[in-house]
């Protein structure tokens, strides 16, 4: 029964896609073809978050090049959302901290933990409201690439400043970003650079900067790590303000040999040696490929983009432009091959379905992002989040489905109790407060994860479906079903959908489908 239903559905689903494929092949994927709605939505979703119809509209009819240039031109360097007031509050001095009683110490712990929650909500708010989703995606990308986090950075002011730095250079210059982030106080704490000194340098940063930030594994030796670690000594923090400072007394100014170069290098000079290696451009371009194209980087297509990236002295837009205009990016076979990250899943749902939310709700949204396995400002380790298929396991998949289910429950409540739904934060009362998903109990999970976020998310299903000329209770015809599919899925649904259901049930089935996890 299931099988035959599926077969019928598959025929239904696949025909239009195959036709599209045929069309593409005949047209030899001419770059100057104007984008249709599906292409435009794909571009915006892949490079940002799921896009709603009003975001998609301006891109329809542009050439790929026009669209990509418009996207890059819209990049921002600062968040538009005002940060919490405490981000400018000075760090308590060593003397003040030493004088604290046990209770004061505990209060401080609690307060910083609360502020971290607030900071997560602030970032998620920026993600759901930004006019440049690409900027936030790149800021997330660099947060994952240059991870630092709450486990080693007690004061969230430092993580806020690092986040501002990552956004400032998100689509700027990679060399500038590398130099700046290497001296960033949160990074100096996260990879122990602040405690490294002449005589017995700490190798943590020296190793990770080669392995994870620039060259990639296999392009350096343990000896390079040991030598480079000596060059970074002296990059430290003012103990009172936790601001970066160079301390020449603990800097090792002797000769070092790093990657075949010898000299009495300081840290900046070693970073420049790393930037001079062609492997760095290839490594970063490959990481960007994995972020935006597929999990199977093609070295032959990456090489010319990496070459231009290097020639541009690491202009990030140059690399992105090369990737976004590559054949692989637009290839139909690469649609739906990437798994949405938790932030993309949550922020995408809010933006794509024009969900309403109250002022306090973005902190609850950030808690959802954490429940799906991505606790912002708290990466699991220096490699960042494992990502890709690792986002989906039995726990996180069920949590994601529960999120969708609650979204639809909210619309039912809306229909049945219009008065309640009009109240600003009660429309989806309890919507996110069902049994919390079975969470990972790893060290990264703070007790706060077990609190129930009360988000007043509101899904106006009538208004959303009206864009596709249908209503929740109407039974969509085949063409309408396909429109809905293309509006929310990157590929055809994998599961059978019962024929002859209402638009509301049809949309719910699409969002419960495994394909909805993909972009």
């Amino acid at each position, binding site marked *: 029964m299931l099988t035959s239903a599926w077969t019928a559905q598959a025929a239904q689903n696949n025909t239009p896609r195959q036709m599209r494929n045929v069309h593409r092949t005949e047209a030899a994927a001419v770059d100057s073809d104007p984008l249709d709605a599906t292409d435009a939505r794909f571009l915006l979703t892949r490079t940002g978050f799921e896009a709603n119809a009003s975001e998609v509209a301006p891109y329809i009819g542009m050439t790929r090049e026009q669209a990509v240039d418009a996207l890059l031109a819209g990049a921002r360097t600062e968040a538009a959302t005002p940060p919490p007031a405490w981000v400018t509050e000075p760090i308590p001095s060593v003397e003040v901290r030493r004088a604290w009683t046990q209770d004061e110490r505990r209060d401080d712990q609690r307060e910083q933990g609360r502020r971290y929650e607030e900071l997560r909500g602030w970032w998620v708010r920026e993600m759901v409201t930004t006019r440049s989703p690409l900027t936030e995606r790149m800021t997330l990308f660099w947060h994952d690439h240059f991870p630092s986090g709450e486990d080693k950075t007690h004061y969230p002011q430092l993580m806020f400043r690092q986040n501002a730095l990552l956004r400032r250079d998100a689509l700027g210059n990679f060399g500038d970003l590398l130099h700046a982030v290497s001296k960033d106080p949160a990074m100096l704490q996260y990879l122990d650079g602040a405690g490294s000194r002449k005589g*017995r340098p700490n190798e943590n940063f020296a190793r990770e900067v080669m392995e994870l930030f620039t060259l990639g594994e296999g392009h350096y030796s343990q000896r390079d790590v040991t030598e480079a670690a000596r060059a970074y000594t002296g990059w430290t923090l003012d103990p009172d303000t936790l601001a970066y400072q160079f301390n020449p007394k603990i800097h090792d100014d002797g000769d070092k040999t790093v990657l075949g170069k010898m000299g009495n290098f300081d840290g900046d000079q070693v970073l420049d040696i790393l930037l001079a290696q062609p492997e760095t451009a290839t490594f970063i371009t490959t990481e960007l490929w994995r972020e935006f194209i597929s999990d199977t980087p093609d070295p032959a297509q990456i090489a010319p983009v990496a070459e231009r990236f290097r020639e541009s002295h690491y202009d990030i837009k140059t690399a992105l432009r090369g990737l976004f205009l590559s054949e692989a990016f637009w290839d139909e076979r690469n649609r739906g091959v990437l*798994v949405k990250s938790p932030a993309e899943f949550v922020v995408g749902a809010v933006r794509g379905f024009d969900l309403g939310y109250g002022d306090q709700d973005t902190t609850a949204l950030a808690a959802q992002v954490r429940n799906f*396995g991505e606790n912002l400002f708290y990466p699991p*380790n220096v490699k960042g989040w494992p990502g890709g298929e*690792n986002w989906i*396991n039995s726990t996180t998949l069920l949590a994601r489905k529960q999120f969708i289910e609650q979204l639809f429950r909210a619309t039912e409540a809306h229909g049945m109790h219009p008065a309640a739904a009009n109240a600003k934060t009660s429309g989806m009362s309890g919507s996110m407060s069902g049994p919390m998903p079975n969470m990972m109990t790893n060290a990264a999970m703070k007790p706060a994860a077990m609190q129930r976020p009360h988000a007043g998310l509101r899904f106006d299903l009538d208004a959303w479906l009206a864009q596709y000329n249908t209503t929740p209770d109407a039974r969509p015809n085949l063409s309408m079903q396909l429109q809905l599919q293309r509006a929310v899925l990157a590929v055809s649904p994998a599961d059978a959908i019962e024929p002859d259901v209402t638009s509301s049930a049809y949309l719910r089935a699409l969002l419960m489908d*495994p*394909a909805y996890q993909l972009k």
Partner: protein
Amino acid sequence: MNRRDFLSMTGAAGAFAFAPTAFAAASPHPVEMRSSGYGNVLILVELKGGNDGLNTVIPFSDPAYATLRPGIGIKREQVIQLDQRTGLHPAMQPLMPLWKDRQLAIVQGVSYPQPNLSHFRSIEIWDTGSRSDQYLHEGWLTRTFRAQPVPTGFAADAVVIGSAEMGPLANGARAVALVNPAQFEKQARLATPISLKERNPALAHILDVENEIVKAADRLRPRAGQFALKTQFPGGAFGTSIKTAMQVLAATDTPAGVPQTGQGVAVIRLTLNGFDTHQNQPGQQAALLKQLSDGMVAMRSALVELGRWNETLIMTYAEFGRRPRENQSNGTDHGTVAPHFVMGGRVNGGLHGVAPELARLDGNGNLPVGVDFRQMYATVLGPWWGMNSTAVLGQKFETLPLLRA
């Protein structure tokens, strides 16, 4: 079509021979079944970050120990003495009854030739059971389950608790990650069984997960009258994950707490985070070793209650040990060998492997390799599960005398 058919159709499956005669899981004779095969459970405990072995199993009589560790070394009088030259960190006191019962084996000097000091590469080597210069895609347990499938009556190949990473179960094993079996069951109705061959690897992965959820929820469903454990579990994340692990085993048992032939899970993988102690190691490591020891003791208590103590092997592992010489930050940097703990009712307790000789460090100040970690895997595969380990590990490794004959 099931997932394995899919794998073999796409050619992703390597061909591994196994010796069916040596494998008793499918045997109709319960006695034989309990002696080898997947009726014997493996519980892996990952010490994530790389535990400092020299402050865990301490060569206190080696004069170089105090020289290398003037700051963070464990004082002689605090060491729990095991023999004339070896002792345990004081936080591991709870393990002493197990040690005295000779149900705790300590394998010293575990690593592999040409050790890699990167967390990620080294744990990948451990997880896939590869050589240092070899890149394998699948976890060593994934290959194991392909060579010898887990009986169909099992809830899953493995249950992963406390980590989102599948590690030795990556890329193909039917592993379910969970915290609370009751909540898991409640949510599992949102998943649908789907039969479909799928070429898109990301979609194929999600379909696999959906199917695993449906099956595991069915088998791990808490039932009225299910055996209730009396063991008190330690608090904290690690204690909670141990409790969950024990509840998973209880769910597949009879209401009287007796394991049922052909049901259960073959592997449980737990993770204890936080061993990457570059800075301020002493307090942090002591807290972690205490959690580990308390957890191990709780596991023994629960497994005895469940009648599974003789059919369970608990084994720690990690990407590497740490550098013998302490660093300037009151911590230790990445090193090579580490001791690992093996316990269970059939374990041959005592010190095994190669004790550290601190006078013989290599050019980077690290200890030479004593025991290849794949010898531990070979011991699980051979004596514990009754399989041909060469087929899974790609070459022959000597087993270790960790089990009583």
